[in-house]
């Protein structure tokens, strides 16, 4: 550390880059929360548990069943999407359009089930994935190559989601459903299918982010709740349902967290997120970017 509390410029540069890298993963996780919230009007309180689930799925496949890393990542994502589809019908479909509390309770309950199963099978010990990756240093801050790849993948997915929503038939149907569900049905849109796919896509984004985060960080069943808090912050920062807003909001949070960990300590991350959340809610509760 810098002498007498001074932090060198290159360390700050390193922290900045590391923040962008990890922040794009936070952004992808938040996007999962954001599209479900923005489009189904459901605050998915199983979000963090689903992130944790994906981490343990990848762990189960690689460590306990010896599946090669890339294959187990892809398998995890596939399972994540299927879980999203099933969870939609079990926990979301029937509470749509009902009182807000119904969907909060039902997704919260679903999250508790996931967390209970994870505790039961894996206990609370921190786990890591067996990842071998070269490390590059940016201004004395080490960043794993695989994290950089993960960040690029996450950013590409967020941009892809933007294109999907604003430039395709599927996306137009999604926006139509948001604006006027009955009118969308009158255009021949299968509204239930659109809502189900949107939910599954949201879960897929969350589990993708979880899997990519697990490549670089250790995790316990509780880890998901930290990323859930981050996701809420980012949704408030970036605006509801806007993929690019989520990505940029994630990067802002990532940079804030990494810089804080350089000048103070890594454990300050959630506090920083919370502060950002409160500041945003006070000065611009609608987010920095337009919503969907």
């Amino acid at each position, binding site marked *: 550390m810098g002498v007498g509390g001074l932090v060198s410029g290159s360390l700050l540069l390193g922290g900045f880059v590391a923040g962008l890298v990890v922040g794009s993963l936070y952004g992808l996780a938040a996007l999962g929360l954001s599209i479900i919230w923005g489009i189904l009007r459901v605050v998915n309180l199983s979000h963090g548990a689903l992130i944790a689930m994906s981490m343990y799925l990848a762990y189960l496949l690689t460590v306990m069943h010896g599946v090669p890393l890339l294959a187990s990542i892809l398998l995890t994502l596939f399972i994540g999407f299927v879980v999203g589809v099933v969870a939609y019908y079990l926990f979301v479909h029937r509470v749509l359009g009902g009182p807000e509390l119904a969907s909060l309770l039902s997704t919260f309950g679903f999250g508790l089930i996931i967390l209970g199963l994870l505790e039961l099978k894996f206990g609370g010990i921190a786990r890591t994935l067996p990842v071998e990756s070269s490390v590059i240093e940016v201004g004395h801050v080490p960043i794993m190559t695989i994290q950089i790849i993960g960040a690029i993948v996450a950013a590409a997915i967020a941009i892809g989601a933007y294109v999907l929503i604003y430039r395709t038939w599927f996306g137009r149907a999604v926006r139509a459903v948001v604006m006027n569900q009955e009118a969308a049905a009158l*255009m021949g849109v299968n509204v239930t299918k659109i809502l189900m796919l949107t939910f599954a896509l949201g879960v897929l984004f969350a589990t993708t982010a979880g899997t990519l985060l697990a490549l670089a960080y250790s995790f316990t069943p509780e880890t998901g709740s930290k990323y859930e808090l981050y996701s809420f912050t980012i949704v408030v920062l970036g605006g509801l349902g806007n993929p690019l807003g989520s990505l940029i909001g994630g990067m802002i949070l990532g940079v804030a967290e990494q810089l804080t960990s350089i000048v103070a300590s890594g454990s300050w991350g959630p506090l920083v997120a919370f502060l950002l959340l409160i500041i945003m809610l006070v000065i611009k509760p609608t987010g920095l970017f337009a919503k969907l």
Partner: protein
Amino acid sequence: MTAILSVERLHTGYGKIPVLWDVSMQVEKGSITALIGSNGAGKTTTLRAIVGIIPAWKGRIVFAGEDVTKLPSYRRVEKGIVLVPEGRGIFPQMTVYENLLMGAYNQRARQKIQESLERVFNIFPRLRERLNQKAGTLSGGEQQMLAIARGLMALPRLLMIDEASLGLAPKLALEIMNLVKRIRDEEGLTILIVEQNVHYALNIADYAYVLETGRIRMEGPAKELAENPEIIKAYLGVH
């Protein structure tokens, strides 16, 4: 004459509350048929049941010889049953162009978007000039035109229009009515209209049904109904 749409002894309602009792009606191919009746009679409910937004409790809906009663609305749209809803139901934050594309959402219509656009601009030239405007910022008349144009983009075989003239100045309402008639005359499209303004409706329709508190009270050729003393008294308001 063959009926493209046949509603047979339809019962339906909302929740447990019945709204329609034993409604039967036929729409002849290539005709303009009007469904008239006072506020709350169940006209909108009838159209929503025909397109499948609400289910039929009893009875059948037969379209082009096929029983569609159990089909979800998106399948019925695919078959060509298209409703321009009361209140227009345009997508306000989408542009006029995106609204038109949404009209052509069904697979059959997607194949013909360019032709459909030309056809729609021919009828509603004003929309061409406003393609990139957000639909929510259009005037009421323009929104109604967009709603009908969007319905045409779906390549309907039966176009149902709920209250096309609602909230429009008389001159504009008349213009829209004449456009509806023109669409039928030029393209032979079958049209079912619901209208508050019974005078307008009977003027362009070939045949009409009168709905009162959920039941069909009267039916007949529009010209005859227009001269029927009961209709004149109840709906055409001689002062």
